[in-house]
């Protein structure tokens, strides 16, 4: 298997999955339970992604500069600081901690 084949197969798989979602009939979401689940799924997947991106390193859990950076982001979000400022502040926090320690 070449690197190109890996890239193409994985890309087409991801694109097909996106299209598959749009093929689910809209009536599916008219019932309260599926609508609620679909809403909560986006919340659960985002929260899980944040956890993995903050603490994951391959298949290990690591506590490093990312955790205080995300904590700073949470604090700034609570203070209603604009989104882009929050992202930059988080990156700066991690960079600063790594530069100092």
């Amino acid at each position: 298997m070449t690197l190109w084949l890996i890239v193409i197969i994985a890309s087409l798989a991801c694109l097909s999955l996106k299209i598959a979602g749009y093929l689910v009939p809209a009536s599916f979401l008219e019932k309260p339970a599926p609508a609620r689940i679909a809403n909560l799924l986006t919340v659960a997947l985002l929260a899980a992604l944040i956890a993995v991106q903050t603490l994951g390193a391959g298949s290990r859990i690591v506590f490093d500069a990312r955790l205080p950076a995300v904590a700073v982001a949470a604090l700034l979000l609570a203070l209603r600081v604009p989104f882009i400022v929050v992202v930059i502040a988080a990156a700066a926090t991690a960079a600063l901690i790594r530069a100092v320690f």
Partner: protein
Amino acid sequence: MARTEPGPSDDDQGREVAPTAATTWSGEDRAVARKGVAVGLAAAAYGISYGALAVAAGLDVWQTCVMSLLMFTGGSQFALVGVIATGGVAAGPAAIASAAILGIRNGIYGIRVAPIVGAGRWRRLAAAWVTIDESTAVATTQSTLRTQRIGFWVTAVSVFVGWNLTSLIGALIGNALGDVRTYGLDAAAAAAFLGLLWPRLRQLQTIAVATAAAVIATVTTPVLIPGLPVLVAGIVAVIVGGFNWFGSRNPQPEPPGIPT
């Protein structure tokens, strides 16, 4: 562009869902558009780290860019690059599986945002292509169908342009840049997702689901292959949503994107 041609034309159908410069935007419209552009800028910031990591893993510049154009889903791209970095081409099947498993959530997002996007085969194909965490999150946190649509498309186009540009830049300068963690670019991605989730954390039910999902993803990361912990955490939403645990007694206001 002013429409001076008299009489109806096919082109006029659905013109209102793709606002042109001539359409007047309310303050609320402009606010969501600004948010979409800001999300695009944030994604661009960690696009550099993707490009740099991809080249470091052994992909060439073309392969790095084809992934951003065709796959266009950051989590899957980082996962594939991560597996290749540790296992090389021999780990191809695992790399494809990781990318695809992480990509499943975009399919779930598609179910949710399809009613927001509206009808039309080509529009839906374009929408599916750019259905990702960011466009879904901005769209679904808006309160009217119009701002949901604006949020979806502005975010989608901003992220698509920003992500692809900085993937290329990252791939080109990656080796000169050194370790992207020095600049905290890995933390930027997590912070951006937190910013997208934040407006949803208003009701007890969403807070409970988010907390449980984060804990489950963390706990299962050491024992499952990359990509799976995020999906396993999604089961929380199915259980809590199915039984409506922590749900408010009053029926929740249905998202306006869903025709009732």
